[in-house]
């Protein structure tokens, strides 16, 4: 499948670079070179988001994962701006280490702990799209199975029972690990995440965190392009949002 472009509409993405981020260029490449969006890097010491329409917290090992994954990154100067941006309804995507940072920052509930099998996992997995009423999955089919790469040692999603029940009730779980046929089996869950959680959104639906890497499965030259569906959904959402804003003026 060739990722399609969104009818010429270009949105502005900011990829935050922390010391130790290592998927920042992947996100930049996927959004800028493959999907033809306007994308720029935002340095962790910056105190402005440069007017972007969406923020990406990329994967990697910010601050060497010292203390806990994402714990130190979340006190970076730029995170104050990211939190205000999210509070104002701005679209924020955290991938892998970015997901950990969003949890540490309190923008998403729960936490990512050590993989149940203790090892670092770097391979393809399947995730099931749990619903398409989110800004990040509108271009997918309900129950669609996406093939995406993971690369993490701490991706085991944990939250207390009450938080977990809330996530289920509010349809905040948008991706679960599954097998190639879409079944939620124990073997398909690579890291022990509760309820097979691979990705969630906040209650308002504008902040999303996921452990798999959509940006590494977007460029057709890498063969797997399911990640493009997530990024294109986000772009479409931003385009619609702009059109709505214009039509209400």
């Amino acid at each position, binding site marked *: 499948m060739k990722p399609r472009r969104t009818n010429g509409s270009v949105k502005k993405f900011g990829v935050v670079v922390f010391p130790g981020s290592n998927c920042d260029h992947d996100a930049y490449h996927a959004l800028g070179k493959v999907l033809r969006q306007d994308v720029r890097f935002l340095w962790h010491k910056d105190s402005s988001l440069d007017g972007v329409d969406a923020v990406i917290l990329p994967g990697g090992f910010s601050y060497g994962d010292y*203390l*806990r994954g994402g*714990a*130190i990154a979340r*006190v970076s100067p730029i995170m104050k701006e990211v939190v205000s941006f999210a509070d104002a309804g701005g679209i924020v995507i955290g991938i892998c280490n970015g997901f950990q940072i969003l*949890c*540490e920052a309190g923008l998403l*509930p*729960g*936490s990512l*702990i*050590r*993989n*149940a*099998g*203790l090892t670092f996992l770097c391979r393809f997995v399947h995730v099931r799209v749990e619903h398409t009423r989110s800004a990040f999955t509108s271009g997918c089919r309900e129950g669609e199975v996406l093939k995406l790469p993971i690369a993490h040692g701490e991706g085991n999603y*944990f*939250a*207390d029972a009450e938080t977990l029940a809330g996530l289920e009730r509010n349809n905040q779980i948008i991706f679960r690990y599954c097998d190639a046929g879409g079944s939620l089996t124990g073997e398909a869950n690579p890291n*022990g995440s509760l309820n097979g959680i691979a990705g969630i959104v906040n209650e308002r639906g504008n902040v999303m965190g996921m452990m798999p890497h959509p940006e590494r499965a977007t460029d057709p030259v890498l063969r797997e392009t399911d990640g493009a569906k997530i990024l294109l959904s986000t772009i479409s959402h931003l385009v619609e949002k702009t059109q709505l804003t214009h039509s209400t003026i």
Partner: protein
Amino acid sequence: MYLAKINVTLRPSILDPQGKAVQHAIASLGMEDVRDIRMGKYIEMKISSDDAEAAGRIADEACRKLLANPVMENFEVTLEEIR
């Protein structure tokens, strides 16, 4: 000046696969009686305050805001006066 000695431990409800692996390793050394290993972090922090209560508050705040993640960890602080 106070020295805060801080232990950060996983909450009991959280599985600790690392502790489990270490326990298996210890069992393989023949120490079969060792049970329930839980791994944690130990942190030392000097606080320039002459007031034990204020130093305790600072240590507590540091734990809540950064050193421990309340979703999955508990912490314990002991204070020692140093010169």
